[in-house]
């Protein structure tokens, strides 16, 4: 078994490298992805090894990056589009919703929208405006798109390859605050399917769901909760659309309680949608309503005060306490 410790950024880089090696039709396109290797160095070294025709430094227009990737997909190529930051995906929103999401259906299955749109998302890096967004719900809500988020280097390494291999369009959300954190990557065995939810910590009192940056926050909270006698079961969603509902149902049927932890605001979010689904499926097992811990329903604040916006261990524990308090 070959494992290597590496950062999430390096894991993504290696995963992209594997994808480029495995299939000559795989391309990368984005602003500054070639010579610079990406502003986060995710594509570092790839243009040097695979050439400018496969790792494409795009002119500055997100709609065109995605729009041309659509045309490349029609021609049989698999483009991994990089949006430099979450807050800059919006110019491409029209192409994503009007074409990427709909062309397979519109063509009665003739077209395969085999493209990946990578978004460095969520906050926690002390950036200026528009660099800390959580737009995943906008895409999850759109029929015809799939959305995932990795939370560990191992998942980053494997999920990016699986996303590239998928014949469906994937919005690939990468928690940029975790880019430089290290983890073990198994270079030989994929952990599981692209959309599978994964149990990160077994527990009995409450199921806590998270994705992207909050997966780690929730695990830290679980350690503290244990010292207070509360056993949290932590599940990393990974698939945001579709959500891998079955393991969540099994878990909530066991614990009777659940909390979703996300950076995005509660209103019309992934968490809110999951509360609806789990309430329906697990109603008779529930000892409390499901809660969502999320950002506030405001434009993301200036990052000097972002730590009071993003869910902290304290806020997670507070929600857990609330949920535990319903039938005690």
């Amino acid at each position, binding site marked *: 078994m070959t494992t290597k410790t590496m950062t999430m950024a390096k894991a993504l880089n290696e995963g992209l490298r594997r994808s480029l090696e495995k299939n000559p039709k795989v*391309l990368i396109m984005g602003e500054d992805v070639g010579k610079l290797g990406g502003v986060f160095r995710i594509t570092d070294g790839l243009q040097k090894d695979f050439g400018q*025709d496969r790792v494409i430094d*795009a*002119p500055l*227009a997100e*709609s*065109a990056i995605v*729009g*041309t*990737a*659509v*045309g*490349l*997909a*029609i*021609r*049989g*190529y698999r483009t991994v589009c990089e949006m430099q930051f979450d807050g800059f995906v919006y*110019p491409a929103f*029209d*192409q994503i919703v*009007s*074409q990427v999401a*709909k*062309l*397979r*259906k*519109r*063509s*009665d*299955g*003739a*077209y*395969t929208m085999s493209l990946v749109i990578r978004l460095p998302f969520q906050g926690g890096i002390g950036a200026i405006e528009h660099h800390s967004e959580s737009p995943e719900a906008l895409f999850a809500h759109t*029929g*015809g798109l*799939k959305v995932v988020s990795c939370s560990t280097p191992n998942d980053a390494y494997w999920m990016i390859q699986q996303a590239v291999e*998928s*014949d*469906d369009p994937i919005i690939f959300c990468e928690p940029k605050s975790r880019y430089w954190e290290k983890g073990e990557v198994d270079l030989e065995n994929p952990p599981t399917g692209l959309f599978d939810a994964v149990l990160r910590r077994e527990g009995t009192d409450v199921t806590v769901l998270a994705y992207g940056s909050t997966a780690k926050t929730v695990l830290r909270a679980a350690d503290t909760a244990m010292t207070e006698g509360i056993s949290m079961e932590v599940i990393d969603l990974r698939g945001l659309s*579709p959500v891998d*509902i079955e393991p969540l149902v099994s878990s909530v049927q066991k614990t009777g309680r659940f909390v979703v932890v996300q950076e995005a605001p509660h209103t019309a979010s992934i968490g809110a949608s999951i509360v609806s689904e789990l309430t329906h499926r697990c109603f008779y097992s529930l000892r409390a309503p499901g809660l969502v811990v999320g950002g506030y329903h405001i434009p993301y604040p200036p990052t000097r005060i972002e730590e009071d916006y993003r869910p902290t261990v304290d806020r997670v524990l507070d929600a857990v306490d609330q949920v535990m308090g319903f039938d005690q």
Partner: protein
Amino acid sequence: MIDEELVQLLTPEGLRVEHPDYTSSLSGDQIFSMYRDMAIIRRLCNESTSLQRQGQLALWAPIQGQEAAQIGAGRALAPMDFTFPTYREHGIAWCRGVPPENMLRLFRAVSNGGWDPYKYRHSVPAIVLGNQVLNAVGYAMGIQRDGAEEAAMTFFGDGASSQGDVLEAFVWAASFNAPVVFFCQNNQWGISTPMSTQSKVPLYRRARGFGFPGIRVDGNDLLAVYEVSKAALENARAGGGPTLIEAFTYRMGAHTTSDDPTRYRVDAEVEVWKHRDPVERVKALLVHEYKTTQGEFDAVDAEADELALQLRADVLAMGRPDPITMFDNVFAEPNREIDEGRQDMVELGISGGAH
């Protein structure tokens, strides 16, 4: 309107004129064949308007007046070229071999597409203006990577030329020297917005600003449209990069059957353009130069009428699809939510589920 840079080879009266850069290469038989294309597509378009007025189509977008622009460009395409249309390229679809009934599936509201794009090398309709222009450039970038001698051709109107996607497409096409021909049918109106609002400069001149050739052609002149398109496509296939063709034409009808042009334009303007009719001028050429007989024109009309009757029958036979089909082809891979939706529909008795 007339500008010394307009390429014209056939006057509105049907007389040949010369141009320093383009010579008509078409034989009499080819011209007659294209006349037939134009007459047929005009007849089918008129039938479609009638069908809409009779409640058989939800909507129709006519191409009346733009037949030469579309047949001229359509017949310049090589079999392996790929076209990216809007929702109004019925003449291009005809040239690519798309059956007329398939062209109407969108307007009958039974499909958002209507045909297999790979079979005809003609993409499905694009309604969001300008999106397909970017898609075409991407396709052309794929052609480059395949090392193929093929071109992509994409169509849009004067209105769409203001959209960011179109301008971004120009940037990409120039930066990557993509084998794509941009064919803009400037029919003078974007619903009620006149060309003067859409652009301060003639559209073909924009290309120069982006770094590639732009040509204005008399969009009602079949001969000129054909030659200009042919040259641009050959140039693209040979690695010469993109061209913008502005086919200067006129939307004789309404934007769609939901529009009422009497609210924003004057009849006198329409009258002026009636004298520039694309079908009549080719007819005049055929009579003067090739001595085409009334009998031969009548035969074309009879064929067009028959095709129109067939189209009518085909449309009337286009029934409501089984609702269960709404779940098909959303994704390549199986999906729980879609399966649940299907299941739901079967349980509600909306569909037998057999599909």
